[in-house]
């Protein structure tokens, strides 16, 4: 039963990874190289300077669309500055970031 459960989880995980066509490792490098982390944090957690990007990032299509024509104080990243392929990798990196435990299960966040 346990073995069956693990197999199901592995299949589910594989399919999730397969949904992100980009290269996670390159996306992680590019996330720093492009300076995304400066406002959004190294794990895309967001904060006072930038929105939360991960876990559960927006789709590749929406990410590319937003990066090209952002709102607020975020500067636009044109195709000259970053390609769609690299942004696809960045989205893959963001999608690979695991969700933290629910806040209600973190004692330090309930005091």
């Amino acid at each position: 039963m346990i073995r069956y459960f693990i197999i199901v989880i592995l299949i589910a995980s594989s399919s999730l990874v397969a949904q992100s066509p980009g290269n996670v490792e390159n996306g992680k490098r590019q996330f720093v190289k492009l300076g995304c982390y400066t406002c959004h944090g190294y794990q895309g957690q967001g904060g006072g300077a930038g929105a939360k990007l991960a876990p559960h990032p927006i789709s590749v299509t929406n990410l590319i669309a937003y990066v090209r024509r952002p709102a607020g104080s975020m500067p636009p990243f044109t195709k000259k500055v970053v390609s769609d392929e690299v942004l696809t990798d960045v989205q893959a990196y963001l999608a690979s970031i695991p969700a933290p435990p629910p806040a209600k299960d973190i004692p330090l966040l309930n005091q």
Partner: protein
Amino acid sequence: MAKSQTPPLARRGFLKGAAAGAAAGAAALVAPVSAEPQDTTQRTVAVPPTAAQRAAENATPAVAIENIQIVERPGADYMVDVFKSLGFEYLFATPGSSFRGIHESVINHGGNHDPEFITFMHEECSVAAANGYAKIEGKPALVCAHGTVGIQHAAMAIYNAYCDQAPAFIIAGNIADAAERRGRVEWLHAAQDVAATVRDYTKWDDNPGSLTHFGESAVRGYQVAMTAPTMPVLLAADGVLQEGEAPKEFDWRIPKLPKISQPAGDSAAVAELAQMLVAAENPVIVTSRSARTPAGLKLLVELAELTGAGVIDQQRRMNFPTRHPLNQTQRSRATVANADLILGLEVYDFFGVVHTLGGQVNVVPRSIIKPGTKLVSISSSDLFYKSNYQNFQRFEDVDISIPADAEATLPALIEAVKRLLTDDRKQAIQTRAAKLAQANRQALEQTRTAASYAWDASPVSTARLSAELWAQIKDQDWSLVSDPFWVSNWPLRLWDFTKHYQFIGGAGGEGVGYLAPAALGAAIANKKHGRLSVSIQSDGDLMMANGVLWTAAHHRIPLLTVMHNNRAYHQEIMQLQRVANQHNRGVDIDKCRIGTEIANPNIDYTMLAKSMGVQAEGPISDPRDLSAAIQRGIRVVKGGDPYLIDVITQPR
């Protein structure tokens, strides 16, 4: 006060006497001691003393020194008595000869008590510390600065305090009479008008020509500084006046400091505002610095609860409890957009409350309020404007402007509201308050979820750092003495702030180099109350003012400093990247670090702190190590000493 029978002795006379004595005793000196300006070329090369010179320096004068005159009743003693009458607990200063008379009198005449001399290593630190002290203690610390150069050093911190509407009382030593200046340095450090450098951002200044004048101007200055809008004032203290004999006829009278009343709004405007508040369906109160004292916090709670108004605290002071059900700070945009009445209390940028400015190349303001929303401002800023520096922000066309101190106006406003409340309105207010309380709870849950992201990350997330710190201090009598803007305001979002002294806001003028000394000044104020002072300290800011570490160790100031060490002037990394993208050429992060990183080599803050006598540990980059480190730090701080923990953090 004993009165001398000696004739009044001016500084010039004293110097001549001293010079004559010195010349008699050290006749072999090549460069004669003289009241006249010295030949500056003699200072350019350090020549070892000759045997004769050494003998002359070390020998006891064989001949009785004539013409020595002793000052029995120096003017500085009177100045110190004036300071004592004004209740100054501390004198923050880097020593300088232009106020050496005051320095000596503080020690010998005043017993180095009220005020006690606290040594800072930069005048900017002295004034910033006074800024932090004032925001805890509600009154100014005394600062002395050394002539032209001392005031120039102090300038940015004075500007910060001016913008922050924090009182400070600054003495600038000066030697006004050219004939009294000893040599070239005293010329360099003297000014015709020593206050001119900072007049654009002080509330008032004076240049007293007599002790009577000094006493009156000191008391007047204190009154000006402490009347809303509270701000720095500056008095020049002439060296001759300090060191010379007080005139025989001088009666040593110290003017009386009155009980200072604050300017309240006029009754007609207050009555009209009360009607608007009671009638409004969605009133919102926005505050920046309305809690000038602890009473201001309580009054705002009372007004909010009475009217069921949501409160947005811009947190330049501790104005409103962070977890109060009516606190809508975490959802300020939605709250403002839904308002039909916005009451601004000491809001420093009302235009910014009701507009977005865009953020791309050009400023494109866009209103975020509903058509017909009424705007009312109560602000003491409207009582005092200066022209040059643009700290007054963009003009907002409010419906009623009440130029007055908000805290002083609230009691009358509260009473006026009480008189107008009917049962129907009370019911509507209760219903509204319940909805706001629900929104407040939801916002807190969302904040906690946001804090959970990157929870175990290394470098440490600023949310994790804040939560770890809160876990260790929440059961203590604590005070956050730093501005958490640089750590995404997590403490203000996660911690339960209820008391006025638990938070002091940030640098009024946003000048970097404020945080470390202001935190120390606030910790000095907290010390006598036994409070646990904690600071989350940005690395770039500390490096502008790291001499405060020595001050903390030397004077045993209990302060827990937790470094927010992102190894950069990080704001400028973001700015550089923004501009590069606007220019459509992007910028690789390695290029972005040119001119912005504080790395290669990394600064060892632990070693830096220890070198100045502050116990320290780190760097910590694993969040699991934080808890024990903070506990160790608190133990040291509760024992009366400062402690520093270096934490490598996420950028914001």
